Structures are given as C-alpha cells and as structure tokens.
C-alpha cells in the first residue's frame, strides 16, 4: 500500500518537474552562486562540496587534457591550497531551458618555487538541471594570448 502511494507520488513529481520555469532571474543567481561555490571549494580543497555540484559524468578540459570528476577531485584534495588562486574577472550566464552556459574570464595566479605567474583564461561552463538540482556537466578554458 505504501509502495503504491510512493510510486504515485514519484510519478506526480516527475510530471510536475518539467513545468518549473528555469528562465527566471533567480536561476541566474543560483548559477552564479554555484560558480562561486566552485571557486571557493577549489581554493579551500573542499572536494566534498565540489562533489555535490559536479555531475558524475563531468568533463573538464584543462591544458588540452580531459579530466574526469574523480581525477579533478583527487587533485583538489592533495594540492596545496595556497599555491593557486582563481579570481573571476567577468562572467555571463545564458539560460536555455534546463541548460545554463556560463562564459567568462578568470585569472589564475600560480606560485611555484616562490615565483608567481599570472595567466588569464576564457572559460565556458555548462550546467544542467537534474533531479538533484543544477550540476556542472562540462567545463573548459582556453589561455588568452596577449
């Protein structure tokens, strides 16, 4: 009996979900907040919070290499937090139904052997709304040539 009730509830929720309006200004704020969480999580080696906002099939393109969610999170866990700093310069959120694109520029400051280098990157992040909420499914960046 409980099972029947539960199944009906699940079916009802599944029908109701697509009716949600993803184009409202609040969604842009949610995506911006998630981007901020990513930057903060990266800086503080917080791979647990990053795991929640990354889809399991995440594709991360970095320096021409494809990096999976597991590889990215393992690296975040072990890297020294003080060495790299990401500063967002600009970002534009573009919504299309249950998909959000974030296009922008960030500045990466790396410290290696006491020497600091700064590089600017243009990025594209793709977020998708799933049953658990918005999750990052793809991200990539290209170095900006001077």
């Amino acid at each position, binding site marked *: 009996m409980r099972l029947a009730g*539960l199944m009906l509830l699940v079916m009802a929720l599944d029908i109701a979900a697509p009716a949600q309006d993803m184009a409202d200004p609040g969604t842009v704020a949610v995506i911006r907040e998630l981007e901020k969480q990513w930057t903060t999580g990266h800086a503080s080696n917080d791979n647990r919070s990053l795991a929640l906002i990354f889809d399991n099939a995440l594709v991360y393109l970095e320096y*021409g290499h494809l990096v999976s969610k597991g590889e990215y999170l393992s690296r975040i866990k072990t890297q020294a937090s003080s060495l790299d700093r990401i500063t967002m310069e600009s970002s534009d959120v573009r919504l299309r139904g*249950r*998909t959000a694109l974030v296009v922008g520029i960030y500045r990466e400051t790396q410290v290696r052997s006491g020497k600091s280098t700064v590089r600017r*990157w*243009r990025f594209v992040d793709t977020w998708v709304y799933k049953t658990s909420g918005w999750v990052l499914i793809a991200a990539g960046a*290209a170095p900006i040539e001077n």
Partner: protein
Amino acid sequence: MKTLMVLAVSTCLAWVPAQAQSSTEERDTQSKLIALEQVVRVQALPSKDVKTLEMFLADEFVLVTLEGRMESKAETFANIQELNSLHYVMNEVQVRVHGSTAIATGLFRMSGVQRGKPFVRQGRFLDTWLNHDGRWLLISSLSTPTG
C-alpha cells in the same frame, strides 16, 4: 486499492525495459551527434558552407578559440570567409548525453591558409549541443591547445 497495487507493480516492471530503451536512445543520440560534428567541422567548415552551418549553429552560438578569443555566430561566419583553404581532421570524438543537452569532445588538427598566411593548429574541442524541438543545435564550442 487493488488497482493501485497493480499500477505500482506494473510501473516497477516497466522500469527495466524503460532503462534499456533509454540507453539505446542515448547511443542513437551519440551516433547522431558524432555524425553532426563530422558534418560541421570536417565538411561544412573547410568548404565554407554557411548554409549548413546556419542549420546547426544556434543563433546565440558562442565560440572560444584556441587563442582564447570569443566570437559570436556572425563573427565566426565572417572569419570563415577569410579562409583561403582549410584541411580539417578530427578524432577521438566522444559524446555524453544529459537529456536534451549533450557534450562532445575530440581532438582536431587543422591546416590551411588564412588571409594569405599558412597556419597549422591542433587542440581539443568541447562542444555543447542542445536539442530544441527535436533538432540538435550547437550552442557553444571551446578549443584549447594540446601539448
């Protein structure tokens, strides 16, 4: 009550075939998008076939080039017209489907002449496709150098 139980059980039984159907659909979508990547990158781009590109690039299409420049659809089309010749090869194309959104990645090598200057470039691309009313449209494309 009996009806509810029957409905619940049949819903559970329908779960497995639905999942199987879903992965078949996913494979079909992957094959379709790999073919579309071929059409856009290997065929339409070198032959400056703007009509075909117009069909598959969304109006809000955004390109991030290997040099980190951002171009709109109109800017991309204008730059294509400046190509004197282009040879484009791609491989290791993979597609991940997330409902009506899909991510395609792959390696490419292009060589040719632009505004009279020869060039050779290679890298990896990351494309975002969106299904709009049954049609797959490319909404963003990012390239980054390899090696």
